[in-house]
């Protein structure tokens, strides 16, 4: 493995995703990508007494399914790299308790999906582990409860608010086996251009996405046209056009490729009006990537994809104290061999 430029990793030993799984909730199941998910719950409770347990169950199921799809047992797994949006990342750590394998918990807010995948690939590429599971989860109600208001509280959301995805996506990374190859990862830096409104996540995260995309092309010497698809994590209807404008101003020719956002892909905003500006949460980019995008790669629809997962690193305390929202984006390049 080597470093390209300032912040990009290039993996030498072709770490690949040999098994993956996605488990989602009812709203995602009604969205346009429903056929891409492995399991869809028709209720938000998921048979559990608390929202937190429901969230954990999603991750437990997705991780188990990913292992089954990779033809592995828990005992063969070397590490689990996970993270989520809860305080003290309880969903990942409690799932790791059940998995019983060495565990690294990370927090990158909604960028956790690609942060865990980049780290898992690094572990595999370095030879420190043969099979490493990367995964993340989010649940609409746990996030509402922790970051906003009680789920049943009657408040009106502004037209730029986003809707947290209920879902979990996991992937098993290994050097051997069949699957799309993780070729590069660009680790983002914190960007904060002074946005303070916690409902306006898209605008807060857009500079981070733009910065990571610019850095990726600067470090690798590639052009956007190299990829068949570039997706951001959860910028939704406000953040994506801002990122497009920022990239245009910096002279990055994004028109060479298809540039979309997972938060816009997962829901039908016309019909599912409750999602307002689109999806968010670490489950958003995780389920769209491990479900929809990798399915399309498997079918041969897409050969090279860059996933730029975006995260807003705020806490309920920080915005109540009037602080602006620091954001980050991590990009992972996934390519189909042959």
């Amino acid at each position, binding site marked *: 493995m080597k470093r390209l430029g300032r912040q990009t990793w290039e993996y030498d030993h072709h770490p690949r995703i040999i098994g993956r799984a996605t488990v989602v909730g009812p709203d995602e199941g009604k969205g346009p990508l429903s056929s891409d998910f492995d399991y869809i719950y028709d209720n938000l409770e998921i048979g559990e007494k608390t929202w937190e347990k429901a969230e954990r169950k999603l991750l437990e199921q997705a991780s188990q399914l990913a292992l089954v799809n990779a033809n592995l047992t828990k005992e063969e797994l070397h590490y689990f790299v996970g993270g989520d949006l809860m305080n003290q990342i309880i969903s990942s750590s409690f799932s790791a308790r059940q998995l019983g394998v060495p565990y690294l918990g990370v927090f990158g807010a909604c960028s956790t999906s690609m942060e865990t995948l980049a780290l898992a690939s690094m572990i595999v590429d370095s030879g420190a582990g043969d099979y490493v599971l990367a995964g993340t989860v989010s649940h609409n109600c746990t996030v509402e409860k922790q970051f906003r208001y009680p789920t049943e509280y*009657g408040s009106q959301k502004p037209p730029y608010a986003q809707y947290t995805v209920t879902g979990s996506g996991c992937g098993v990374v290994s050097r051997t086996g069949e699957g799309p190859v993780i070729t590069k990862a660009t680790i983002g830096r914190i*960007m904060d251009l002074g946005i303070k409104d916690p409902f*306006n996540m898209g605008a807060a995260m857009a500079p981070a996405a733009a910065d990571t995309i610019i850095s990726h092309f600067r470090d690798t010497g590639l052009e956007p046209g190299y990829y068949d698809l570039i997706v951001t994590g959860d910028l939704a209807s406000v953040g994506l056009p801002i990122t497009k404008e920022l990239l245009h101003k910096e002279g990055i020719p994004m028109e060479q490729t298809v540039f979309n956002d997972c938060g816009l892909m997962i829901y039908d905003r016309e019909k599912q009006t409750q999602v307002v500006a689109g999806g968010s949460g670490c489950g958003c980019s995780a389920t769209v990537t491990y479900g929809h995008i990798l399915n399309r790669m498997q079918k041969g629809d897409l050969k090279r994809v860059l996933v730029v997962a975006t995260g807003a690193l705020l806490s309920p305390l920080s915005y109540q104290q009037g602080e602006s929202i620091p954001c980050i984006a991590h990009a992972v390049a996934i390519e189909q061999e042959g």
Partner: protein
Amino acid sequence: MAEQSATGKKKTSSLSMDEKEYKKVAKKYEPPRPILKNCIKAFFVGGTVCLIGQAIQEAFMAGLDMTSKEAASPTVAVMILISVILTCLGVYDKIAQWAGAGTGVPVTGFANSMCSAALEHRAEGLVLGVGANMFKLAGSVIVFGVVAAFIIGIVYAFLGFGGGHL
């Protein structure tokens, strides 16, 4: 090492835009809140809630031969009950998303804020969950309500205007 930009400030980003410029760009893409539409909806929904309240009060007065003063408390109780039932059925928040401030009318909105917080934190137990969190949202209404009443009371006591005793 951070590159030095023309202004001598440390450059930590590959974007040439500063905070001020960025806020302008972000503002351009921020869909505005439909204020007029929201006001009209809030006016009619709030009015309807009050109309329902009035109808219940009239029913108490006609049915149970109460005076309007006697009917006030049971009317409030019924409005609270309706709000709590709608909250528990998961409907109140959906109405509120559409109606905005219209559902914030004191009695029903207050009941919803308490009920939703109680429901949400039931998982953390009766004392640390329900008891401690029930007033999470409604608490500031009570605090500032009491403070405002206190100030008005002082003004009233010293200046004695307003005429007559309450």
